[in-house]
């Protein structure tokens, strides 16, 4: 049975305006679902029910007055790496367990100003480092499609919350695939816009040349609505692009006949599950049926992207995470002097994967190794950007699987970092090149688990990306639902 909390944001926005339901009723529906399932899913680290109720009442008043943007009254979940004033923000880490930000991140500030309703903060891999959500200091998130499976990561809580009908939509972050891969494994839509299109003010940093805020939604249209509300230049983030705020739903329904779609040939090889390959190939046939011109594209250096990423991201992380020194915020473990205090604090506060990446990055940046590792990885980044430039000379969008597999069992890859890192092999190139990319469900595999298809477009070509994704979504008519809530 479909409750209010299972509907799309766009559908609910229309229902709110037609007087068919109130924002308070939508919130009640979400809270009831969280009460019913989150003890098993564990998507939320903190709930802000009382705050949400005030916000929903205010949204109802604005809707009644006819002065409400499309996002007003739609309950949202925020990944716990996005700062929220007076609401604990932990990054899934012991080191920030008690941290309460004194300010809001810009994406939430913009949504709050529009009448947004915040349900709470979602679980994630510690400091967004992971592909399964098992690296959270507060326990794993369970996939609504199978509770013994991972939801993907690192925005696993946000993806699972949307999949389970706990939140109507959510924000996550994507440094190497952390919005798109969990969207793929959890059967929802995950958009990583162009690097710099959404402000990162108040996003707690992991790898600054790659970190991108993204959306987790039930439809491509909802992703466009959410991007319209939070995208565009922010003077508080010097790395945000000089792009105006704009309406990304404009032109969304224009037909895609003649659009040139390149199928990335390297993304269908060894290591890709047959169920994933078949589903994405079927979706490509649907694109052809819509009049798109299909061709074969090649990203010859994509096979080096993973290696480059696992030098660049940890290097930047080792620098960004140097700030956790027990002085200004977070955990402090006492020591005889400052160095001992810092070393003990960091030893006790960080989990295994975060320490592994700090060590990797520290080594890669250390005297004598910088050129051999970080310098070489930056050259690969150039080669990958050139691959895309060549491909986008012939195509408007590229298509591939989002991840080589569907959701895998909790515990299956946690002791083998390299196997885990392979989950992001198809998503990382868009982070290295800054290109926008989206994952939409393309179908289910033989086990009934959702498969994600990734579309990638040139820098700032979000309108084309969203238009193609929207048309394909309609053609595919994906309507499978997680076992947890299908009953």
């Amino acid at each position: 049975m479909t409750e209010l909390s299972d509907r799309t944001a766009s559908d609910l926005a229309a229902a709110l305006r037609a007087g068919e339901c109130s924002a308070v009723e939508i919130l009640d529906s979400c809270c009831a679902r969280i009460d019913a399932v989150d003890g098993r899913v564990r998507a939320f680290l903190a709930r802000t029910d009382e705050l949400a109720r005030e916000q929903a009442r205010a949204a109802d008043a604005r809707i009644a007055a006819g002065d409400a943007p499309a996002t007003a009254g739609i309950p949202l979940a925020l990944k716990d790496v996005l700062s929220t004033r007076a609401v604990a923000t932990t990054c899934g880490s012991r080191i920030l367990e008690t941290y309460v930000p004194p300010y809001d991140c810009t994406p939430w500030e913009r949504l709050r100003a529009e009448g947004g309703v915040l349900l709470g903060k979602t679980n994630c891999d510690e400091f967004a480092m992971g592909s399964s959500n098992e690296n959270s200091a507060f326990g794993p998130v369970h996939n609504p499609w199978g509770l013994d499976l991972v939801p993907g990561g690192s925005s696993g809580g946000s993806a699972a919350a949307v999949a389970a009908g706990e939140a109507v939509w959510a924000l996550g972050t994507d440094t190497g695939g952390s919005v798109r891969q969990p969207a793929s494994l959890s059967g929802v839509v995950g958009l990583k816009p162009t690097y710099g299109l959404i402000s990162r003010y108040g996003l707690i940093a992991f790898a600054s040349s790659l970190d991108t805020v993204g959306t987790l939604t039930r439809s491509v249209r909802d992703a466009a609505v959410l991007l319209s509300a939070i995208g565009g230049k922010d003077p508080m983030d010097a790395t945000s692009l000089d792009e105006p705020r704009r309406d990304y739903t404009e032109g969304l329904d224009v037909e895609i006949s003649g659009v040139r779609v390149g199928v990335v040939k390297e993304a269908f090889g060894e290591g890709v599950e047959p169920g994933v390959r078949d589903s994405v190939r079927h979706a490509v046939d649907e694109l052809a049926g819509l009049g798109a011109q299909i061709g074969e594209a090649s990203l010859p250096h994509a096979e080096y992207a993973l290696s480059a990423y696992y030098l660049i991201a940890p290097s930047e992380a080792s620098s960004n995470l140097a700030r956790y020194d027990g002085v200004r915020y977070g955990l402090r473990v006492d020591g005889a002097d400052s160095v001992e205090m810092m070393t003990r604090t960091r030893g006790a506060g960080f989990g295994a994967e975060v320490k592994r990446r700090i060590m990797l990055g520290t080594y890669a940046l250390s005297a004598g190794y910088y050129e051999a590792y970080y310098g070489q990885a930056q050259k690969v980044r150039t080669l990958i950007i050139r691959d895309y430039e060549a491909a986008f000379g012939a195509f408007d969008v590229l298509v591939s699987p989002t991840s080589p597999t569907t959701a895998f069992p909790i515990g299956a890859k946690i002791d083998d970092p390299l196997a885990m890192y392979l989950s992001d092999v198809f998503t990382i190139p868009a982070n290295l090149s800054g290109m926008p990319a989206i994952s939409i469900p393309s179908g289910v595999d033989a086990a009934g688990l959702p498969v994600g298809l990734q579309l990638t477009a040139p820098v700032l070509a979000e309108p084309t990306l969203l238009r193609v994704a929207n048309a394909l979504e309609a053609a595919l008519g994906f309507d499978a639902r997680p076992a947890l809530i299908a009953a």
Partner: protein
Amino acid sequence: MPVEIDIDHVARLARLEFTVDEKARLREQLGVILEAAAKVSEVATDDVPATAYAIPRSNVLRPDEITPSLTVEEVLSNAPEVEDDRFKVPRVVEVE
């Protein structure tokens, strides 16, 4: 071949504390990860320029104007230890 790393040296640089077992596991895991990562050198030849940022930006400056900012209380609100509106830390320098 897996890369050999001086774990104690890197841990000191990173200000991280590990048990003996953790160090052994890290030495093995990082060695394997770095071996895989070294694959970048197969194509990163001298004639390829490095890219630090995918979308290049030059210096971003704003007008030098005073805008609202956090209060001292807000800035110190998360500090583990505070004294006289300052962050308090253990001794940093030796005093004779």
